[in-house]
């Protein structure tokens, strides 16, 4: 299952349905290492499903999903766990574990998936939390955090294993413009300083303009536009053009 290309993520003719509803229809695209792709589209057009297919939290009905150099479709759990170590996932509502403190949320993947000592885990957790501006909040539980803090904490957990590819599901949703901009800044820094590939599902066109090398627009399960922000803004597809310009 080794691909002969350098794409960070590639979809090849991917189809996905839930019952009678077709969510993704013959979708193909790729994004290179260290690039940022923003997925735009109206609600319910399969953007979050796309991220879950990359993380192999769902299986497509047909097609191939390549992550780095592995086709994750049909992989066993053991192989998947190796691929998932290359991926970080910022969930829409952060999905922090309620019963664990912020520190424990970040330490959990480190203690489970690496051979780091307790001191090393302490160092990594404190550094990552400080990077996202939550250095003094490590003892707090998720319920004690504001929406923006939760997003940053979710981002910290997604980054704690130093992933090659970061998936972010609406990182700025529900946040004020300033906080959203701070989150975008963190994502951008990750790309420029660490060469992390970003795939961001967003409705925030301002954020997309700042962070994206490529923009993909999904509409009714179809990929209707793909290219740079300028290219998509001149697309012949009305939905794509309106999403990026209005």
């Amino acid at each position, binding site marked *: 299952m080794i691909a002969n290309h350098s794409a960070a993520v590639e979809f090849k003719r991917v189809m996905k349905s839930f019952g009678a509803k077709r969510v993704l229809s013959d979708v193909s695209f790729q994004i290179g290492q260290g690039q940022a792709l923003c997925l735009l589209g109206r609600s319910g057009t399969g953007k979050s499903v796309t991220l879950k297919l990359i993380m192999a*939290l769902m299986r497509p009905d047909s097609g191939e999903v390549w992550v780095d150099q592995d086709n994750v479709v049909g992989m066993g759990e053991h192989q*998947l*766990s190796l691929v998932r170590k290359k991926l970080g996932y910022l969930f829409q509502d952060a999905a922090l574990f309620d019963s664990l403190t912020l520190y424990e949320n970040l330490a*959990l*993947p480190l203690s*489970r*998936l690496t051979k780091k000592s307790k001191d090393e885990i302490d160092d990594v957790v404190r550094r990552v939390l400080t990077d996202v501006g939550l250095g003094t909040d490590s003892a707090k539980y998720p319920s004690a955090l504001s929406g923006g803090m939760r997003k940053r904490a979710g981002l910290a957990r997604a980054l704690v294993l130093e992933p090659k590819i970061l998936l972010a599901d609406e990182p700025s949703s529900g946040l004020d413009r300033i906080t959203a901009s701070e989150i975008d800044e963190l994502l951008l820094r990750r790309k420029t300083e660490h060469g992390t590939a970003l795939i961001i599902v967003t409705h925030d066109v301002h954020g997309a303009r700042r962070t994206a090398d490529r923009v993909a627009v999904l509409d009714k399960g179809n990929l209707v536009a793909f290219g740079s922000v300028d290219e998509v803004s001149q697309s012949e597809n009305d939905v794509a053009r309106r999403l990026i310009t209005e």
Partner: protein
Amino acid sequence: MRWLSRLFEFVGKVGFFSLQVLVDTLRPPFEFAQFSRQLTEVGNRSLALIIVSGFALGAVMTLHTRSTLVTFGATAMIPAVQAVSFFVEIGPLVAGLLLAGRVGSGIGAVLANMRASEQIDAIESLSIDSFRFLVVPRVLACVIALPFLTLFMDFAGLIGGFLSEVLSSHIAPALYLNRAFDYLQWSNFIAPTLKTAVFGFIIGSVSSYFGYTTDKGAQGVGEAATNSVVVSSLLIIVADVLLIKCIFFLFPDTAI
């Protein structure tokens, strides 16, 4: 006939889910930290409810038993009736039903909330087997904790009954205990207490099934909590009937 096919489908799914729990319980790696956390949640935090309920039930039962036995001039039998009924049936069954209410609803709601808020997806995304991490420790905690909670319920009931009897008849503690344990054999005590491990397995696996497999978002949280309590309570009562027959078969003396 449609309801019948849905019933069989449900039984099959829960059965397969429970089987997976059994298999994963025996397969390393073991989630000791999670198990310890759940044991505290299931055991320690249910203790007050169990003790208070047992005490009150013991006191009330003695009052009722007394009013009946007085008619037959058999009030001397009150301690024995109290002890045998509590250790053999009331303690195990009521402890199981109370735990189904307190812990079953909690497990169902917590796991359903974790599913709705994508926390289970987040666990999977971290290459952690969510089933082994969330479900197995909860079921195991219920299996281990319930027999111990049953013992607390039994003795709390005995103390409640004793205090109630002391207030009515001023019976001496030594005499009460003597009469209470006169008719109680080890087989009356061990088998019924151990059968609650099966109740614990039912509570843990049924509640986890409803919470872990829900796909209805926030609405699913309430449904999972309710279904966990209703179905596990029902299954406990049905299992009790079957287990009593097993106990009678294994320990024929107790059937007399």
